[in-house]
Protein backbone atom coordinates (compact mmCIF):
# COMPACT_ATOMS: atom_id res chain seq x y z
CA UNK A 1 0.00 0.00 0.00
CA UNK A 2 2.49 2.60 1.11
CA UNK A 3 4.95 2.97 -1.69
CA UNK A 4 6.68 6.04 -0.32
CA UNK A 5 7.52 7.02 3.20
CA UNK A 6 6.02 10.46 2.76
CA UNK A 7 2.23 10.21 3.11
CA UNK A 8 0.63 13.56 2.53
CA UNK A 9 -1.53 15.16 5.18
CA UNK A 10 -4.38 15.27 2.68
CA UNK A 11 -4.26 11.52 2.29
CA UNK A 12 -4.17 10.95 6.07
CA UNK A 13 -7.18 13.19 6.39
CA UNK A 14 -9.05 11.21 3.72
CA UNK A 15 -8.24 7.89 5.37
CA UNK A 16 -9.37 9.14 8.76
CA UNK A 17 -12.66 10.29 7.24
CA UNK A 18 -13.10 6.89 5.61
CA UNK A 19 -12.52 5.13 8.97
CA UNK A 20 -15.01 7.44 10.70
CA UNK A 21 -17.60 6.60 8.06
CA UNK A 22 -16.98 2.85 8.40
CA UNK A 23 -17.28 3.02 12.22
CA UNK A 24 -20.52 4.96 11.98
CA UNK A 25 -21.90 2.37 9.51
CA UNK A 26 -21.03 -0.50 11.84
CA UNK A 27 -22.65 1.24 14.79
CA UNK A 28 -25.86 1.88 12.87
CA UNK A 29 -26.01 -1.74 11.67
CA UNK A 30 -25.50 -3.06 15.20
CA UNK A 31 -28.13 -0.82 16.77
CA UNK A 32 -30.73 -1.50 14.09
CA UNK A 33 -30.12 -5.26 14.35
CA UNK A 34 -30.66 -5.23 18.10
CA UNK A 35 -33.77 -3.08 17.78
CA UNK A 36 -35.39 -5.12 14.98
CA UNK A 37 -34.52 -8.65 16.11
CA UNK A 38 -34.90 -7.82 19.80
CA UNK A 39 -38.25 -6.21 19.14
CA UNK A 40 -39.42 -9.18 17.13
CA UNK A 41 -38.27 -11.63 19.81
CA UNK A 42 -39.89 -9.60 22.58
CA UNK A 43 -43.09 -9.36 20.59
CA UNK A 44 -43.29 -13.15 20.12
CA UNK A 45 -41.98 -14.18 23.55
CA UNK A 46 -44.38 -11.90 25.40
CA UNK A 47 -47.37 -12.92 23.30
CA UNK A 48 -50.17 -14.52 25.33
CA UNK A 49 -49.89 -17.84 23.48
CA UNK A 50 -46.12 -18.20 23.58
CA UNK A 51 -45.86 -20.63 26.57
CA UNK A 52 -48.20 -23.00 24.77
CA UNK A 53 -46.47 -22.64 21.40
CA UNK A 54 -43.15 -23.32 23.06
CA UNK A 55 -44.58 -26.45 24.58
CA UNK A 56 -46.18 -27.79 21.34
CA UNK A 57 -43.54 -26.71 18.77
CA UNK A 58 -40.26 -26.48 20.63
CA UNK A 59 -40.44 -29.21 23.24
CA UNK A 60 -36.91 -30.46 23.86
CA UNK A 61 -37.97 -33.85 25.23
CA UNK A 62 -40.23 -34.57 22.27
CA UNK A 63 -37.47 -33.39 19.94
CA UNK A 64 -34.96 -35.77 21.52
CA UNK A 65 -37.37 -38.69 21.35
CA UNK A 66 -38.59 -38.16 17.79
CA UNK A 67 -35.35 -37.04 16.13
CA UNK A 68 -33.85 -40.51 15.48
CA UNK A 69 -37.01 -41.73 13.79
CA UNK A 70 -37.39 -38.58 11.69
CA UNK A 71 -33.73 -38.81 10.74
CA UNK A 72 -34.24 -42.37 9.59
CA UNK A 73 -37.13 -41.22 7.41
CA UNK A 74 -35.00 -38.37 6.10
CA UNK A 75 -32.48 -40.89 4.80
CA UNK A 76 -35.20 -42.06 2.39
CA UNK A 77 -35.67 -38.46 1.25
CA UNK A 78 -31.98 -38.14 0.55
CA UNK A 79 -31.83 -41.39 -1.41
CA UNK A 80 -34.91 -40.48 -3.42
CA UNK A 81 -33.52 -36.99 -4.05
CA UNK A 82 -30.19 -38.29 -5.35
CA UNK A 83 -31.74 -40.87 -7.68
CA UNK A 84 -34.40 -38.50 -9.04
CA UNK A 85 -31.86 -35.71 -9.50
CA UNK A 86 -29.57 -37.91 -11.59
CA UNK A 87 -32.50 -39.10 -13.71
CA UNK A 88 -33.69 -35.49 -14.12
CA UNK A 89 -30.25 -34.28 -15.25
CA UNK A 90 -30.12 -36.95 -17.95
CA UNK A 91 -33.76 -36.70 -19.08
CA UNK A 92 -33.70 -32.89 -19.04
CA UNK A 93 -30.59 -32.83 -21.23
CA UNK A 94 -32.11 -35.32 -23.68
CA UNK A 95 -35.30 -33.26 -23.98
CA UNK A 96 -33.34 -30.03 -24.41
CA UNK A 97 -31.13 -31.56 -27.13
CA UNK A 98 -34.19 -32.79 -29.01
CA UNK A 99 -35.90 -29.42 -28.68
CA UNK A 100 -32.86 -27.45 -29.92
CA UNK A 101 -32.12 -29.78 -32.83
CA UNK A 102 -33.13 -28.80 -36.33
CA UNK A 103 -33.08 -32.21 -38.04
CA UNK A 104 -36.30 -32.84 -39.94
CA UNK A 105 -36.40 -36.48 -38.84
CA UNK A 106 -36.61 -35.38 -35.21
CA UNK A 107 -39.77 -33.32 -35.77
CA UNK A 108 -42.10 -35.76 -33.97
CA UNK A 109 -39.69 -35.90 -31.04
CA UNK A 110 -39.50 -32.11 -30.97
CA UNK A 111 -43.28 -31.97 -30.82
CA UNK A 112 -43.34 -34.53 -28.00
CA UNK A 113 -40.63 -32.60 -26.17
CA UNK A 114 -42.67 -29.43 -26.39
CA UNK A 115 -45.80 -31.21 -25.13
CA UNK A 116 -43.85 -32.85 -22.31
CA UNK A 117 -42.49 -29.53 -21.09
CA UNK A 118 -45.84 -27.75 -21.42
CA UNK A 119 -47.77 -30.44 -19.58
CA UNK A 120 -45.39 -31.35 -16.79
CA UNK A 121 -44.13 -27.86 -16.11
CA UNK A 122 -47.65 -26.52 -16.18
CA UNK A 123 -49.12 -29.03 -13.72
CA UNK A 124 -48.64 -28.57 -9.97
CA UNK A 125 -46.13 -31.13 -8.70
CA UNK A 126 -48.44 -32.24 -5.90
CA UNK A 127 -51.11 -33.04 -8.50
CA UNK A 128 -48.64 -35.13 -10.50
CA UNK A 129 -47.71 -37.07 -7.37
CA UNK A 130 -51.39 -37.85 -6.80
CA UNK A 131 -52.12 -38.73 -10.42
CA UNK A 132 -49.08 -40.97 -10.91
CA UNK A 133 -49.13 -42.42 -7.39
CA UNK A 134 -52.78 -43.43 -7.41
CA UNK A 135 -53.51 -43.54 -11.15
CA UNK A 136 -50.79 -45.90 -12.35
CA UNK A 137 -51.56 -48.71 -9.85
CA UNK A 138 -55.26 -48.31 -10.65
CA UNK A 139 -54.54 -49.36 -14.24
CA UNK A 140 -53.65 -52.80 -12.85
CA UNK A 141 -51.22 -53.40 -15.68
CA UNK A 142 -48.50 -55.93 -15.07
CA UNK A 143 -44.96 -54.63 -15.37
CA UNK A 144 -45.77 -51.15 -14.15
CA UNK A 145 -44.33 -50.26 -10.75
CA UNK A 146 -46.68 -50.14 -7.78
CA UNK A 147 -44.21 -49.15 -5.08
CA UNK A 148 -45.31 -45.68 -3.89
CA UNK A 149 -41.69 -44.58 -3.50
CA UNK A 150 -40.93 -45.44 -7.13
CA UNK A 151 -44.16 -43.82 -8.34
CA UNK A 152 -43.54 -40.70 -6.28
CA UNK A 153 -40.03 -40.55 -7.69
CA UNK A 154 -41.40 -40.84 -11.22
CA UNK A 155 -43.87 -38.01 -10.60
CA UNK A 156 -41.10 -35.77 -9.26
CA UNK A 157 -38.89 -36.79 -12.17
CA UNK A 158 -41.53 -35.80 -14.74
CA UNK A 159 -42.07 -32.42 -13.15
CA UNK A 160 -38.41 -31.56 -12.67
CA UNK A 161 -37.26 -32.94 -16.04
CA UNK A 162 -39.55 -30.40 -17.65
CA UNK A 163 -38.04 -27.56 -15.61
CA UNK A 164 -34.46 -28.70 -16.07
CA UNK A 165 -34.97 -29.23 -19.83
CA UNK A 166 -35.91 -25.56 -20.11
CA UNK A 167 -32.86 -24.54 -18.06
CA UNK A 168 -30.62 -26.53 -20.39
CA UNK A 169 -32.35 -25.11 -23.45
CA UNK A 170 -31.87 -21.55 -22.23
CA UNK A 171 -28.20 -22.35 -21.61
CA UNK A 172 -27.70 -23.85 -25.06
CA UNK A 173 -29.39 -20.87 -26.70
CA UNK A 174 -27.29 -18.44 -24.65
CA UNK A 175 -24.05 -19.62 -26.28
CA UNK A 176 -23.21 -17.06 -28.94
CA UNK A 177 -24.00 -18.05 -32.53
CA UNK A 178 -20.41 -17.32 -33.50
CA UNK A 179 -19.33 -20.32 -31.45
CA UNK A 180 -21.41 -22.65 -33.60
CA UNK A 181 -20.13 -20.94 -36.76
CA UNK A 182 -16.52 -21.35 -35.62
CA UNK A 183 -17.08 -24.99 -34.70
CA UNK A 184 -18.58 -25.73 -38.12
CA UNK A 185 -15.86 -23.71 -39.86
CA UNK A 186 -13.11 -25.93 -38.44
CA UNK A 187 -14.93 -28.91 -39.91
CA UNK A 188 -16.96 -30.26 -37.00
CA UNK A 189 -20.39 -31.73 -37.66
CA UNK A 190 -23.47 -30.25 -35.98
CA UNK A 191 -23.46 -32.89 -33.26
CA UNK A 192 -19.71 -32.52 -32.67
CA UNK A 193 -20.19 -28.74 -32.41
CA UNK A 194 -22.86 -29.34 -29.77
CA UNK A 195 -20.75 -31.83 -27.85
CA UNK A 196 -17.33 -30.17 -27.89
CA UNK A 197 -18.14 -26.48 -28.17
CA UNK A 198 -21.69 -25.49 -27.22
CA UNK A 199 -22.63 -27.86 -24.38
CA UNK A 200 -19.39 -27.40 -22.39
CA UNK A 201 -19.98 -23.64 -22.42
CA UNK A 202 -23.69 -23.95 -21.69
CA UNK A 203 -23.18 -26.27 -18.72
CA UNK A 204 -20.78 -23.83 -17.06
CA UNK A 205 -23.40 -21.12 -17.23
CA UNK A 206 -26.12 -23.51 -16.12
CA UNK A 207 -24.61 -24.58 -12.82
CA UNK A 208 -26.30 -21.87 -10.69
CA UNK A 209 -29.86 -22.30 -12.06
CA UNK A 210 -29.49 -26.10 -12.02
CA UNK A 211 -28.40 -26.05 -8.38
CA UNK A 212 -31.37 -23.82 -7.68
CA UNK A 213 -33.65 -26.54 -9.02
CA UNK A 214 -31.72 -29.09 -6.90
CA UNK A 215 -32.69 -27.16 -3.78
CA UNK A 216 -36.34 -27.04 -4.86
CA UNK A 217 -36.37 -30.78 -5.62
CA UNK A 218 -34.79 -31.61 -2.27
CA UNK A 219 -37.75 -29.89 -0.57
CA UNK A 220 -40.40 -31.29 -2.89
CA UNK A 221 -39.34 -34.85 -2.09
CA UNK A 222 -41.61 -34.39 0.96
CA UNK A 223 -44.59 -34.44 -1.44
CA UNK A 224 -44.07 -38.18 -1.84
CA UNK A 225 -45.36 -38.50 1.74
CA UNK A 226 -48.95 -38.20 0.49
CA UNK A 227 -48.54 -41.65 -1.09
CA UNK A 228 -47.61 -43.13 2.30
CA UNK A 229 -43.86 -43.92 2.32
CA UNK A 230 -42.22 -43.34 5.69
CA UNK A 231 -40.08 -40.35 4.80
CA UNK A 232 -39.18 -37.57 7.24
CA UNK A 233 -42.26 -35.39 6.88
CA UNK A 234 -44.60 -38.39 7.04
CA UNK A 235 -42.97 -39.79 10.18
CA UNK A 236 -43.03 -36.37 11.80
CA UNK A 237 -46.74 -36.10 11.00
CA UNK A 238 -47.43 -39.54 12.51
CA UNK A 239 -45.62 -38.73 15.74
CA UNK A 240 -47.40 -35.39 15.86
CA UNK A 241 -50.73 -37.15 15.48
CA UNK A 242 -49.90 -39.51 18.34
CA UNK A 243 -48.97 -36.98 21.00
CA UNK A 244 -50.41 -33.71 19.66
CA UNK A 245 -47.02 -32.07 19.61
CA UNK A 246 -45.62 -30.36 16.52
CA UNK A 247 -41.97 -30.55 17.56
CA UNK A 248 -41.22 -33.52 15.23
CA UNK A 249 -42.14 -31.27 12.28
CA UNK A 250 -39.56 -28.78 13.50
CA UNK A 251 -37.06 -31.64 13.60
CA UNK A 252 -37.92 -32.50 10.00
CA UNK A 253 -37.62 -28.85 8.96
CA UNK A 254 -34.16 -28.67 10.56
CA UNK A 255 -33.08 -31.73 8.59
CA UNK A 256 -34.26 -30.22 5.29
CA UNK A 257 -32.48 -26.98 6.15
CA UNK A 258 -29.30 -28.91 6.93
CA UNK A 259 -29.20 -29.91 3.26
CA UNK A 260 -30.78 -26.94 1.48
CA UNK A 261 -28.83 -24.17 3.24
CA UNK A 262 -25.37 -25.49 2.28
CA UNK A 263 -26.68 -26.09 -1.27
CA UNK A 264 -27.97 -22.50 -1.38
CA UNK A 265 -24.56 -21.20 -0.28
CA UNK A 266 -22.96 -23.12 -3.14
CA UNK A 267 -25.49 -21.61 -5.57
CA UNK A 268 -24.69 -18.11 -4.31
CA UNK A 269 -20.99 -18.61 -4.65
CA UNK A 270 -21.34 -19.87 -8.23
CA UNK A 271 -23.87 -17.18 -9.11
CA UNK A 272 -21.60 -14.49 -7.72
CA UNK A 273 -18.87 -15.41 -10.15
CA UNK A 274 -20.93 -16.62 -13.10
CA UNK A 275 -18.39 -15.22 -15.55
CA UNK A 276 -15.46 -16.45 -13.50
CA UNK A 277 -16.96 -19.93 -13.51
CA UNK A 278 -16.10 -20.17 -17.20
CA UNK A 279 -12.53 -21.09 -16.39
Amino acid at each position, binding site marked *: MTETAAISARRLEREAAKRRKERRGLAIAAVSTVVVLGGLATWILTSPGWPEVRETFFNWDVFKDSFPEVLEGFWLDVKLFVIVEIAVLIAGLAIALVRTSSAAALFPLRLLGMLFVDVFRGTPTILLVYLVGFGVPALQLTGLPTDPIVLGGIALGLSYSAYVAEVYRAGINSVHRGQRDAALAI*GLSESQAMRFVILPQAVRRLAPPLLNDFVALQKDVALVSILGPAEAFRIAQIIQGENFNFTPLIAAAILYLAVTVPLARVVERMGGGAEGAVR
Partner: protein
Amino acid sequence: MSAVLEIHGVTKAYGERQVLRGIDLDVSEHEAVALIGASGSGKSTLLRCIDLLEEIDDGDVFLDGEVITDPAVDPVAVRRRLGLVFQAYNLFPHLTALQNVVLGEMRAHGVGRAEAEERGRALLARFGLEGREHDRPDNLSGGQQQRVAIARAFSGKPRAFLLDEVTSALDPELVGEVLAAVRDLKAEGMTMLIATHEMSFAREVADRVAFLHEGRILEQGPPDQVLVSPEREETKRFLSRLLEAGRI
Protein backbone atom coordinates in the same frame (compact mmCIF):
# COMPACT_ATOMS: atom_id res chain seq x y z
CA MET B 1 -3.13 -21.15 -63.12
CA SER B 2 -6.23 -23.08 -62.21
CA ALA B 3 -9.02 -21.58 -60.18
CA VAL B 4 -9.29 -22.91 -56.64
CA LEU B 5 -12.50 -20.99 -55.98
CA GLU B 6 -15.02 -20.11 -58.67
CA ILE B 7 -18.10 -18.12 -57.80
CA HIS B 8 -20.80 -17.95 -60.46
CA GLY B 9 -23.86 -15.71 -60.25
CA VAL B 10 -24.32 -16.10 -56.51
CA THR B 11 -27.32 -14.35 -54.98
CA LYS B 12 -28.45 -14.26 -51.40
CA ALA B 13 -31.31 -12.47 -49.65
CA TYR B 14 -32.24 -12.26 -46.00
CA GLY B 15 -36.01 -11.98 -46.21
CA GLU B 16 -36.72 -8.83 -48.23
CA ARG B 17 -33.11 -7.62 -48.09
CA GLN B 18 -31.11 -8.63 -51.17
CA VAL B 19 -27.51 -8.87 -49.95
CA LEU B 20 -25.76 -10.50 -52.92
CA ARG B 21 -27.08 -9.68 -56.37
CA GLY B 22 -25.10 -11.98 -58.66
CA ILE B 23 -21.45 -12.35 -57.72
CA ASP B 24 -18.91 -13.68 -60.23
CA LEU B 25 -15.38 -14.09 -58.94
CA ASP B 26 -12.48 -16.51 -59.36
CA VAL B 27 -9.54 -17.05 -57.03
CA SER B 28 -6.59 -18.87 -58.59
CA GLU B 29 -4.09 -21.10 -56.88
CA HIS B 30 -1.66 -19.07 -54.69
CA GLU B 31 -3.62 -15.93 -55.42
CA ALA B 32 -4.77 -13.44 -52.78
CA VAL B 33 -7.89 -11.49 -53.67
CA ALA B 34 -8.93 -8.57 -51.48
CA LEU B 35 -12.65 -7.84 -51.19
CA ILE B 36 -13.24 -4.19 -50.39
CA GLY B 37 -16.44 -2.26 -49.94
CA ALA B 38 -18.52 -0.45 -47.35
CA SER B 39 -20.03 -2.17 -44.34
CA GLY B 40 -23.15 -3.97 -45.48
CA SER B 41 -21.93 -4.33 -49.06
CA GLY B 42 -22.02 -8.14 -48.68
CA LYS B 43 -18.37 -9.05 -48.03
CA SER B 44 -19.01 -11.12 -44.90
CA THR B 45 -22.09 -12.73 -46.39
CA LEU B 46 -20.14 -13.83 -49.45
CA LEU B 47 -17.44 -15.46 -47.30
CA ARG B 48 -20.06 -17.16 -45.12
CA CYS B 49 -21.83 -18.44 -48.23
CA ILE B 50 -18.58 -19.90 -49.59
CA ASP B 51 -17.96 -21.71 -46.27
CA LEU B 52 -21.57 -22.96 -46.43
CA LEU B 53 -22.52 -21.25 -43.16
CA GLU B 54 -25.27 -19.57 -45.19
CA GLU B 55 -27.24 -21.14 -47.99
CA ILE B 56 -27.17 -19.24 -51.27
CA ASP B 57 -30.34 -18.60 -53.28
CA ASP B 58 -28.99 -18.86 -56.82
CA GLY B 59 -25.72 -19.51 -58.64
CA ASP B 60 -22.96 -21.90 -57.62
CA VAL B 61 -19.57 -22.03 -55.94
CA PHE B 62 -16.86 -24.43 -57.11
CA LEU B 63 -13.87 -25.58 -55.08
CA ASP B 64 -11.13 -27.16 -57.22
CA GLY B 65 -13.63 -27.50 -60.01
CA GLU B 66 -16.25 -29.35 -57.94
CA VAL B 67 -19.53 -27.73 -57.10
CA ILE B 68 -19.90 -27.26 -53.34
CA THR B 69 -23.22 -25.44 -53.20
CA ASP B 70 -25.26 -28.37 -54.47
CA PRO B 71 -27.75 -29.56 -51.84
CA ALA B 72 -26.40 -33.10 -52.31
CA VAL B 73 -22.90 -32.07 -51.17
CA ASP B 74 -21.99 -32.72 -47.54
CA PRO B 75 -21.21 -29.27 -46.11
CA VAL B 76 -19.03 -30.72 -43.33
CA ALA B 77 -16.64 -32.26 -45.87
CA VAL B 78 -16.44 -28.95 -47.75
CA ARG B 79 -15.72 -26.89 -44.64
CA ARG B 80 -12.86 -29.25 -43.80
CA ARG B 81 -11.18 -28.10 -47.00
CA LEU B 82 -11.60 -24.40 -46.25
CA GLY B 83 -10.31 -22.12 -43.49
CA LEU B 84 -12.41 -19.21 -42.25
CA VAL B 85 -11.21 -16.54 -39.83
CA PHE B 86 -13.83 -14.32 -38.22
CA GLN B 87 -13.80 -10.63 -37.44
CA ALA B 88 -14.58 -11.35 -33.75
CA TYR B 89 -12.07 -14.27 -33.57
CA ASN B 90 -14.79 -16.62 -32.17
CA LEU B 91 -12.26 -18.61 -30.20
CA PHE B 92 -13.70 -21.27 -27.89
CA PRO B 93 -13.48 -19.59 -24.47
CA HIS B 94 -13.55 -22.85 -22.49
CA LEU B 95 -10.46 -24.21 -24.27
CA THR B 96 -6.81 -23.17 -24.15
CA ALA B 97 -5.05 -21.73 -27.19
CA LEU B 98 -3.58 -25.13 -28.01
CA GLN B 99 -6.91 -26.93 -27.52
CA ASN B 100 -8.55 -24.39 -29.84
CA VAL B 101 -6.01 -25.22 -32.52
CA VAL B 102 -6.12 -29.02 -32.19
CA LEU B 103 -9.89 -29.53 -31.77
CA GLY B 104 -10.61 -29.50 -35.49
CA GLU B 105 -7.59 -31.63 -36.35
CA MET B 106 -8.51 -34.27 -33.80
CA ARG B 107 -12.28 -34.35 -34.24
CA ALA B 108 -12.77 -33.34 -37.86
CA HIS B 109 -9.61 -34.75 -39.42
CA GLY B 110 -9.06 -37.73 -37.12
CA VAL B 111 -5.48 -36.86 -36.26
CA GLY B 112 -4.16 -38.44 -33.04
CA ARG B 113 -3.68 -36.23 -30.00
CA ALA B 114 0.11 -36.43 -29.90
CA GLU B 115 0.52 -35.55 -33.55
CA ALA B 116 -2.14 -32.83 -33.45
CA GLU B 117 -0.57 -31.22 -30.39
CA GLU B 118 2.87 -31.31 -31.89
CA ARG B 119 1.60 -29.61 -35.03
CA GLY B 120 -0.51 -27.23 -32.94
CA ARG B 121 2.49 -26.11 -30.89
CA ALA B 122 4.51 -25.57 -34.03
CA LEU B 123 1.67 -23.52 -35.57
CA LEU B 124 1.28 -21.36 -32.46
CA ALA B 125 5.05 -20.81 -32.41
CA ARG B 126 4.98 -19.86 -36.06
CA PHE B 127 2.46 -17.11 -35.31
CA GLY B 128 4.49 -15.83 -32.35
CA LEU B 129 2.49 -17.52 -29.60
CA GLU B 130 5.14 -19.72 -28.07
CA GLY B 131 4.54 -20.04 -24.33
CA ARG B 132 0.85 -19.10 -24.63
CA GLU B 133 -0.31 -22.65 -25.47
CA HIS B 134 -2.12 -23.13 -22.17
CA ASP B 135 -3.68 -19.67 -21.90
CA ARG B 136 -7.41 -19.28 -22.32
CA PRO B 137 -8.60 -16.73 -24.87
CA ASP B 138 -9.59 -14.18 -22.22
CA ASN B 139 -5.98 -14.06 -21.03
CA LEU B 140 -4.80 -13.11 -24.50
CA SER B 141 -4.84 -9.74 -26.24
CA GLY B 142 -7.09 -9.26 -29.26
CA GLY B 143 -4.12 -9.58 -31.58
CA GLN B 144 -3.00 -12.80 -29.91
CA GLN B 145 -6.53 -14.19 -30.04
CA GLN B 146 -6.81 -13.46 -33.73
CA ARG B 147 -3.46 -15.17 -34.35
CA VAL B 148 -4.70 -18.24 -32.46
CA ALA B 149 -7.79 -18.13 -34.69
CA ILE B 150 -5.57 -18.01 -37.77
CA ALA B 151 -3.55 -20.98 -36.48
CA ARG B 152 -6.82 -22.81 -35.78
CA ALA B 153 -8.14 -22.22 -39.30
CA PHE B 154 -4.77 -23.15 -40.76
CA SER B 155 -4.43 -26.41 -38.82
CA GLY B 156 -6.84 -28.23 -41.13
CA LYS B 157 -4.49 -27.61 -44.10
CA PRO B 158 -7.16 -25.73 -46.04
CA ARG B 159 -7.15 -25.38 -49.81
CA ALA B 160 -8.21 -21.76 -49.46
CA PHE B 161 -8.32 -19.23 -46.65
CA LEU B 162 -11.29 -16.92 -46.12
CA LEU B 163 -10.50 -13.89 -43.95
CA ASP B 164 -13.44 -11.82 -42.76
CA GLU B 165 -12.16 -8.39 -41.71
CA VAL B 166 -9.73 -9.99 -39.33
CA THR B 167 -8.37 -6.69 -38.00
CA SER B 168 -11.61 -4.70 -37.65
CA ALA B 169 -12.17 -5.61 -34.00
CA LEU B 170 -8.58 -4.88 -32.98
CA ASP B 171 -7.04 -1.88 -31.25
CA PRO B 172 -4.90 -0.04 -33.83
CA GLU B 173 -1.58 -1.00 -32.25
CA LEU B 174 -2.46 -4.72 -32.57
CA VAL B 175 -3.38 -4.66 -36.25
CA GLY B 176 0.20 -5.06 -37.43
CA GLU B 177 0.88 -8.40 -35.76
CA VAL B 178 -2.23 -9.98 -37.32
CA LEU B 179 -1.45 -8.58 -40.76
CA ALA B 180 2.07 -10.01 -40.40
CA ALA B 181 0.52 -13.45 -39.90
CA VAL B 182 -1.56 -13.05 -43.06
CA ARG B 183 1.49 -11.83 -44.96
CA ASP B 184 3.28 -14.96 -43.77
CA LEU B 185 0.50 -17.16 -45.20
CA LYS B 186 0.64 -15.28 -48.48
CA ALA B 187 4.41 -15.81 -48.69
CA GLU B 188 3.77 -19.52 -48.30
CA GLY B 189 1.47 -19.42 -51.30
CA MET B 190 -1.86 -19.83 -49.54
CA THR B 191 -4.86 -19.11 -51.74
CA MET B 192 -6.82 -16.37 -50.01
CA LEU B 193 -9.99 -14.34 -50.24
CA ILE B 194 -9.61 -11.40 -47.86
CA ALA B 195 -12.45 -9.08 -46.90
CA THR B 196 -10.69 -6.02 -45.52
CA HIS B 197 -10.87 -2.35 -44.62
CA GLU B 198 -7.09 -2.01 -44.59
CA MET B 199 -6.41 -0.50 -48.02
CA SER B 200 -2.66 -0.26 -47.60
CA PHE B 201 -2.59 -3.91 -46.64
CA ALA B 202 -4.79 -4.87 -49.59
CA ARG B 203 -2.41 -3.01 -51.83
CA GLU B 204 0.59 -4.77 -50.38
CA VAL B 205 -0.64 -8.36 -50.13
CA ALA B 206 -3.41 -8.77 -52.70
CA ASP B 207 -2.76 -9.77 -56.27
CA ARG B 208 -6.18 -8.50 -57.17
CA VAL B 209 -8.74 -6.22 -55.56
CA ALA B 210 -12.48 -6.58 -56.05
CA PHE B 211 -14.81 -3.74 -55.09
CA LEU B 212 -18.16 -4.89 -53.76
CA HIS B 213 -21.03 -2.41 -53.81
CA GLU B 214 -24.63 -3.19 -52.89
CA GLY B 215 -24.21 -6.89 -53.55
CA ARG B 216 -22.34 -6.61 -56.86
CA ILE B 217 -18.69 -6.59 -57.79
CA LEU B 218 -18.44 -3.27 -59.60
CA GLU B 219 -14.83 -3.53 -60.59
CA GLN B 220 -11.79 -5.67 -60.04
CA GLY B 221 -8.17 -5.64 -61.07
CA PRO B 222 -4.63 -5.17 -59.80
CA PRO B 223 -4.44 -3.12 -56.57
CA ASP B 224 -2.65 -0.25 -58.23
CA GLN B 225 -5.45 0.10 -60.69
CA VAL B 226 -8.51 -0.31 -58.46
CA LEU B 227 -7.12 1.52 -55.43
CA VAL B 228 -5.26 4.29 -57.25
CA SER B 229 -7.16 5.02 -60.42
CA PRO B 230 -10.54 3.35 -60.17
CA GLU B 231 -12.88 3.51 -63.14
CA ARG B 232 -16.20 3.58 -61.33
CA GLU B 233 -17.64 6.59 -59.55
CA GLU B 234 -18.78 4.37 -56.63
CA THR B 235 -15.23 3.09 -56.08
CA LYS B 236 -13.85 6.63 -56.12
CA ARG B 237 -16.46 7.77 -53.62
CA PHE B 238 -15.74 4.80 -51.32
CA LEU B 239 -12.00 5.41 -51.42
CA SER B 240 -12.32 9.14 -50.86
CA ARG B 241 -14.54 8.52 -47.84
CA LEU B 242 -11.90 6.19 -46.39
CA LEU B 243 -9.28 8.85 -47.11
CA GLU B 244 -11.32 11.47 -45.24
CA ALA B 245 -11.65 9.10 -42.30
CA GLY B 246 -7.87 8.71 -42.26
CA ARG B 247 -8.06 5.02 -43.00
CA ILE B 248 -5.65 5.01 -45.93
